[in-house]
């Protein structure tokens, strides 16, 4: 019993970290219909910024986190303007090619600027210690990640489903020329959404850095995981992504505990089973 509870806690924490990192991708892929494989690269940039800010400049974690998100959002503006914008509505394969190319470049540059070694982000004392939750203790940074994840989920859901901006965004994605013809400034809507998605990537990169350490290959290493989470949840669905992260987190954690030697088997079998039953993902919008 103790063990089951314990696994449950680990699964929840792991799932929430996954969620924070991949939700931005769910937004780009589901809402903006952009297969942005460079998502991990932006998460990595966020991680580097935060690492540099805490280690070299000695900033407080909170400021470093904000700086990382802000830096990535600012970086997103020219990238969107000069690169991504040309690929809205292009075939998925072209988007994949472009973003893989971009990922390669970012990896190369990271390797050159920051070196091939691991980087860590210094946590404030409050997030360092364990927190006692009754029957066991959990590292505070995991609780922090979970809380951030929930807040992001709620905030995004409100933004997309309940605001005028959300309607404009979804309209622009569905049929950009028509949205323009209705007076929606699609370019601005897109730029803002893209920037938000990249900001979320950076947030995920920093918050999740304790599990997914920052190094140049980060951008490629975790690409598959992000893709899997997004599609199992249903691209563009926040609830779906959350559910997918928790389910897959549980499968992986339980597998790691019970039969680690088959860990990935169960993980991918679960993916196949879920997608076979829900071809649009757990809560995907039907096409």
């Amino acid at each position, binding site marked *: 019993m103790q063990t089951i509870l314990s696994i449950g806690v680990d699964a929840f924490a792991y799932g929430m970290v996954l969620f924070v990192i991949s939700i931005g991708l769910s937004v780009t892929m589901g809402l903006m219909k952009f297969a942005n494989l460079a998502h991990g690269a932006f998460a990595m940039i966020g991680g580097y910024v935060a690492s540099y800010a805490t280690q070299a400049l000695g900033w407080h974690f909170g400021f470093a986190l904000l700086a990382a998100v802000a830096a990535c959002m600012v970086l997103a503006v020219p990238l969107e303007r000069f690169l991504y914008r040309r690929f809205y509505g292009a075939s998925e394969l072209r988007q994949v090619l472009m973003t893989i190319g971009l990922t390669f470049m970012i990896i190369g540059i990271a390797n050159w600027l920051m070196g091939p070694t691991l980087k860590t982000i210094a946590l404030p004392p409050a997030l360092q210690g364990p927190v006692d939750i009754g029957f066991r203790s959990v590292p505070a940074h995991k609780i922090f990640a979970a809380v951030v994840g929930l807040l992001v989920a709620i905030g995004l859901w409100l933004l997309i489903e309940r605001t*005028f901006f959300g*309607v*404009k965004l*979804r*309209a622009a994605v*569905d*049929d950009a*020329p*028509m*949205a*323009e*013809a*209705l*007076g*929606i*400034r*699609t*370019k601005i809507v897109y730029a803002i959404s893209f920037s938000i998605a990249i900001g979320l990537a950076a947030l995920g990169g920093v918050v999740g850095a304790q599990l997914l350490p920052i190094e140049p290959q980060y951008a490629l290493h975790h690409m598959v995981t992000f893709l899997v989470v997004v599609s199992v949840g249903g691209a563009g669905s926040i609830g779906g992504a959350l559910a997918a992260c928790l389910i897959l987190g549980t499968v992986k954690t339980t597998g790691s505990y019970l039969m680690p030697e088959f860990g990935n088997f169960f993980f991918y079998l679960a993916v196949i089973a879920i997608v076979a039953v829900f071809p649009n993902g757990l809560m995907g*919008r039907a096409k």
Partner: protein
Amino acid sequence: MTAASLTISGLTAGYSQTRILEDIDLSVPAGGRTAVLGRNGMGKTTLFASIAGQTRRHGGTIRLDNTELTALDGAARARAGLGYVPQNRAIFRSLTVEENLLSGLKDRPRSAIEEAYTLFPRLAERRQNMGGQLSGGEQQMLTTARTILGQPRLLMLDEPLEGLAPVICDALMEAFTQLAASGTMTILLVEQRLKAAFDFADTIVILERGRVAWQGTSAALQADTATIDRLLGVGH
């Protein structure tokens, strides 16, 4: 809101390298009701799309009252007073009916969408349905309602009756006539059913291979069966 006049001169436009429209001159006075006719593939849709800013322009100018449109992007043109109901309907399939209507409001308050429901009660019944689930006729209603909600000063309707039941067609043409008569909108209409076009329009423009082949009053055209046969009849 008052109706706006449209002046096109020397417009040449098309898709990427191909030119579909050649040297179009056209002017529609404020409050006018103009029908654009022509056989399939003659460039009617392309003309509207060019005014809306969705094609590649090779030359010429388009003015709405005194605003030069050619320098503006689609959204800015819409904000300058252009409304476009495209032939393919362009419903936002993954948005609900209500959200589709919201998207057309420009900066009007949310409550304005009730106007659309008054015009098409059928839409009110389906307000929570996804756009993609609607029947053909319902989609046609939705696209028209959505554009009208933005209170355009120049409304371009590309075959707005397609797929609508005769009763609805009657009601809709009635509504268009009223909008034009009230002086709030200039209307440009593409319609395949000559009778509907003749009944509605005061001026008629006929396109033939991307050029204006005939232009005149509706009455003059109705009297000129030879032209009707030549430009609109079965051409072989």
